[in-house]
């Protein structure tokens, strides 16, 4: 039994396996299937300052080895989260982390100030990469200047772990990572979904109500892996890798490429128990290769 403990900036994780925002509800949705305390952390559904109804149906299109979604950050707002959801999740014995999105810098800051007061939320994941909202979201994450501005503003009010979720829809993701690191981000997570689209040729219409949506699943894994490798070489802060992880082997690949921890997203839809299977699989791998700690495989890729 290897030591699976890992620290990400200010966060202490019992193991490097977390569940990605938007794929795991708030956690309790999965409690019938697995022991939530066995995973390293849960990133709750994308939260915004005020309630959002999200995009109209249809919001999803299956693709070869993946899916497109255009949910559009449907959530009941930060205050509702604090008053009605937080009380039900705060005592889950794992890290409950809030994925925070916004349309304006002021919205991000106001919500971050509110979340800073939650004792049992040790960190936020600043979502500057959602491709499915008209304003804000990805617009902040696709230029160094706007990414710097939002991270700098939130950093002033948010004292705990500040992770920034990066968009792959950019020319050079390392530049954005360096920009948010310079403004005080404690860690970065990548990748959010890749912008894509799907068409119904019989009807000559787009499948998604928003025409375009975010691609996830194994289809994006090679891209995610490449970006994690590039970013991990560029920055000094920890990198959390995600994008198409379906099993322990995939998770280990991300760690070898330089990720200190990983998130499991779309795979939760196929197998709601996959996250604990990945924890067990990483442990087996470490034992099999004679590693005493999971930290030994971070960036251990032999090029």
């Amino acid at each position, binding site marked *: 039994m290897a030591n699976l403990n890992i620290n990400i900036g200010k966060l202490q994780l019992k193991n490097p396996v977390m569940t990605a925002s*938007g*794929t*795991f*509800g708030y956690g309790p*949705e*999965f409690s019938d*299937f697995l022991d939530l305390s066995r995973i390293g952390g849960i990133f709750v*559904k994308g939260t915004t300052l005020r309630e959002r*109804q*999200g995009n*109209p*149906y*249809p*919001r*999803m*299109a*299956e*693709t*070869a*080895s*993946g*899916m497109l*979604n255009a*949910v559009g950050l*449907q959530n009941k707002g930060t205050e509702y989260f604090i008053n009605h959801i937080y009380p039900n999740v705060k005592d889950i014995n794992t890290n409950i982390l809030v994925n925070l999105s916004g349309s304006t810098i002021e919205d991000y800051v106001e919500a971050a100030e509110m979340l800073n007061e939650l004792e049992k939320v040790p960190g936020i994941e600043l979502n500057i990469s959602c491709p499915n909202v008209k304003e804000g979201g990805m617009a902040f994450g696709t230029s160094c200047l706007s990414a710097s501005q939002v991270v700098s503003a939130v950093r002033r009010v948010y004292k705990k772990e500040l992770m920034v979720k990066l968009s792959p829809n950019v020319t050079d993701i390392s530049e954005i990572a360096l920009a948010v690191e310079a403004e005080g981000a404690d860690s970065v997570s990548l990748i959010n979904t890749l912008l894509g689209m799907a068409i119904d040729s019989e009807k000559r219409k787009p499948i998604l109500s928003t025409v375009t949506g975010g691609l996830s*699943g*194994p289809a994006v894994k090679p891209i995610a892996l490449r970006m994690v490798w590039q970013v991990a070489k560029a920055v000094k802060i920890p990198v959390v890798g995600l994008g198409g992880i379906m099993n322990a082997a995939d998770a280990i690949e991300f760690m070898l490429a330089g990720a200190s921890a990983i998130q499991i997203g*779309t795979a*939760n*839809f*196929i*197998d*709601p*128990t996959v996250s604990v299977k990945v924890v067990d699989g990483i442990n087996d791998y470490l034992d099999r290769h004679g590693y005493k700690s999971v930290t030994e495989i971070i960036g251990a890729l032999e090029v």
Partner: protein
Amino acid sequence: MLDLIVKKNEALNNQYSLLILTSSEKLPAMLPGQFAEVRVDNSPTTFLRRPISINYVDYEANELWLLVQIVGDGTRKLSELKVDDICNLVFPLGNSFTLPENKDAKILLVGGGVGIAPLLFWGSYLKERGYSCNFVLGGRSKDNLLQLCEFERFGNVFTTTEDGSHGERGFVTQHSHLKGSNFDYIYTCGPTPMMKAVAAYALQTKANCEVSLENTMACGIGACLCCVTDTTEGHLCVCTEGPVFNITKLKWQI
């Protein structure tokens, strides 16, 4: 999440098959209207599970029936499962149809195409509890009318086909059984235009009406928010707040 065993997989015709699953353990309790998320193995183009209504449950024989319409490669692979193959299900999911308050209630179940699937289980459940119901089942042609003998065990069955090859020619809402009748409760599942027509009929005749929606889904457990429908309470997940909705809650233009 359970690995079930294929007991029988019968092709009803070239578009539909009846997949009968069993388990070495006692199947969990299920309610009419609920569905299963079925994993599809060995289909490179099928990434997500397929949400499929529970068609019928025979607790004595420990059988779960799924009516599979062959639409793409995923459902084709399900139709090709052999006896003793493993089929992995996340189930039972979603809510269920609401029992009428009064056992004398006049109840109509209206189904179209593969949408008849949950109505068989619902009809059997109603009969077991001392209710009586009638069925109006519709299809494009007689090939789309399925399990008629099974339905007849639980109530009178009336049919319509668009080409007149079985029962009355036309749509379910044009069937003579609906003319002059006053139903207290109408339950429907099928193509959306059909359900909207049934909902309009229910509104006109002041019947209580529930519809079972089949929006495209990913997770099936309320985590991804992909399958939402617009309601008087905003966007609600069809997988957890449905699939059964009272028509008064839906924002349908009818």
